């Protein structure tokens, strides 16, 4: 492999670096796990871990705001990164409300008026079901490695726990809302601990914290996710996974408007 081609192609360069590192490790017989992986690979792996090729589960969402608090029980299904369906099962007043994500589109089903409504682009940043998540979160959730340049910002111990911290900056052409995203991942088990979202001015907008790591559906996952908006530290939305299955047989036809309406 000639040097010029290495310097010209960053992808090849990183692969070359990877091979070189592995050779070096093999030579020294010191297997230093992890460090040799690129930041992108780790983030991608963490993303996949929480999703699987398909998944099905029961989630509780607890929303706390200045004026009201609410707990919703929901059934969720997902297929790959493009499809997901969420249906509220309790309390009775909201039961039957459902959200379908198919590609870049988000649809809501409103049982009271028996209508499905596509969320228009102008409201993608609006709150999803009154929570601190936006409709955009549903669509963009899985595209970190596509839309962001990822670098290791920190590699070492935090409070005695070995972690990586990844700095993600949007690629110039990416249509994303964040100016910067920072994610902390535990080295020991690839579990995320928190993600911080900054706007284009570098101001912290919200923090997502992961906890209650449990084995569910044969995998270790953080069963509790809490989002806190930076400007209202007293408000929060918590997602608590009650039940989770991975890699179950499921087809795209499940994620249809008809199914959104009729109940999965």
């Amino acid at each position, binding site marked *: 492999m000639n040097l010029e081609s290495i310097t010209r192609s960053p992808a090849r360069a990183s692969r070359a670096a990877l091979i070189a590192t592995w050779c070096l490790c093999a030579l020294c017989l010191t297997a230093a796990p992890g460090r040799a992986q690129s930041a992108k690979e780790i983030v991608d792996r963490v993303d996949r871990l929480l999703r699987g090729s398909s998944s099905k589960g029961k989630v509780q969402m607890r*929303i706390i*705001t*200045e*004026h*009201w608090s*609410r707990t919703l029980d929901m059934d969720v299904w997902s297929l790959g990164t493009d499809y997901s369906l969420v249906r509220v099962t309790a309390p009775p*007043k*909201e039961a039957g*409300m459902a959200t379908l994500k198919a590609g870049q589109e988000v649809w*809501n089903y*409103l049982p*009271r*008026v028996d*209508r499905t*409504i*596509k*969320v*228009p682009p*102008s*409201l993608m940043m*609006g*709150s999803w*079901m*009154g929570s601190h998540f936006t409709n955009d979160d549903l669509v963009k959730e899985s595209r970190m490695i596509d839309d962001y340049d990822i670098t290791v910002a920190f590699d070492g111990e935090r409070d005695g726990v070995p972690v990586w911290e990844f700095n993600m900056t949007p690629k110039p052409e990416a249509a994303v809302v964040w100016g910067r995203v920072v994610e902390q991942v535990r080295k020991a088990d690839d579990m995320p601990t928190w993600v911080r979202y900054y706007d284009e001015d570098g101001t912290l907008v919200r923090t997502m914290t992961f906890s209650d790591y449990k084995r569910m559906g044969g995998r270790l996952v953080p069963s509790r996710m809490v989002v806190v908006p930076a400007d209202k530290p007293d408000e929060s939305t918590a997602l608590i996974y009650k039940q989770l299955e991975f890699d179950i047989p499921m087809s795209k036809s499940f994620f249809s408007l008809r199914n959104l309406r009729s109940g999965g």
Partner: protein
Amino acid sequence: MSRGNGVWWRVAWRNLWRNRGRTLVTASALAFGYLAAVVVSGLDDGMGAELIDNGTHLLSGEIQVHAANYLPDRKVNHTIGGDDGVDVSALLRRIDEDPDVTAAAPRVYGGGLVSAGDRTEASLLLGIDPVREPRVTTLLSDMDGGRIPRSAHEVAIGSEMARQLHVTLGDTLVLVAPAADGLLGNDLYRLVGIFHTGTPEVDGSYTILPLADLQSLLDMSPDRIHEIALDVARPSATDAVVARLESTLPTDGGPQVDVRSWRRLRPELAQSVDLMSSMNFLIILIIFGMAVFGVANTMIIGTFERRKEFAVVRALGTTAMGVGRTVVYEGILLGILALAAGALITWPVMVWWHNAPPDLSGFVGGISWAGSRWRPILRVEYSTEIPIYSALALFVTSVVAAVYPAWRATRIPPADALGDR
């Protein structure tokens, strides 16, 4: 010396009429400059008045009352009187009592979605009092079809929104909005009216329904409103009304209210209007800036022609200052003459133009600017400032134009001029 002075004024006056044609032409130039300055500024003021009028009467009203924390975020829970609300009819009665308030209308806002068939648009939901609202704003006065929503489950949308949703009168619309209790309020409504204001931002975004209906969609009690919009009889009374309401309204130990005039509510509109009035001064400056050189030119020629005459007067013992002074006096007298002529031709033109403004609506459509619609009706607005400033500018012009020729006149050496050197 005053008697001597009188002589110089008389000399100046006579000099002015020695070349009658030239003086009349110069005076007419100044008079028409005055006419142009006053009329163009009047047109500019007319556009400004039109902007204010349409800008405030279309939607915002001249004054608005909110809870102190409502603007600028417009959170659904920040109602007047806080979470408990207020006795709305008592509050309205109190506002109606103000002698300068002609009408007041309560409002509720919600941000949400309007959907019909497979089409959905984001919309600003506005709950109105069907009786009070038309007294404050003209929003619902131009209906493309249908009528004002009056009873439960009736809505009106703008023509642009109707086009985007592909709906016509009688169709069913779904409204969805995050309610005060965090739920997603949603219900079905019948389209009973389509309004057309000519302002795309309004026609494409507002959905209007009766106050009580929006309150129930948003899970708000009838005591909770976001805004009261007011109409004031005389625009000049606006600030006084704001001050009075500020002192009387803070209610019963509840959260403070915030009273704002259109200047604070619509800073972009206020700025446009301010920009227009500052342009008036630019217009005056340009017109009389040009006039100054024309007048100076005539007077330089006039003094040059009289070189010998000045020389004789100097030779007879008049001081240089005395000679210069006649020329300046000529300028002053020319200015007074031009001003009289200018006022005489400007006044009827202004009266006519104010009362019978040319309506160009047939040729050009309305223009939307700074959130206000401007109709192409070229009415001139009367003003006390502009005629006075223009008169001052005219007067200063004729005097300034005389200064250089006067200085030249003082520099004429009698011997050289008489000796034709």
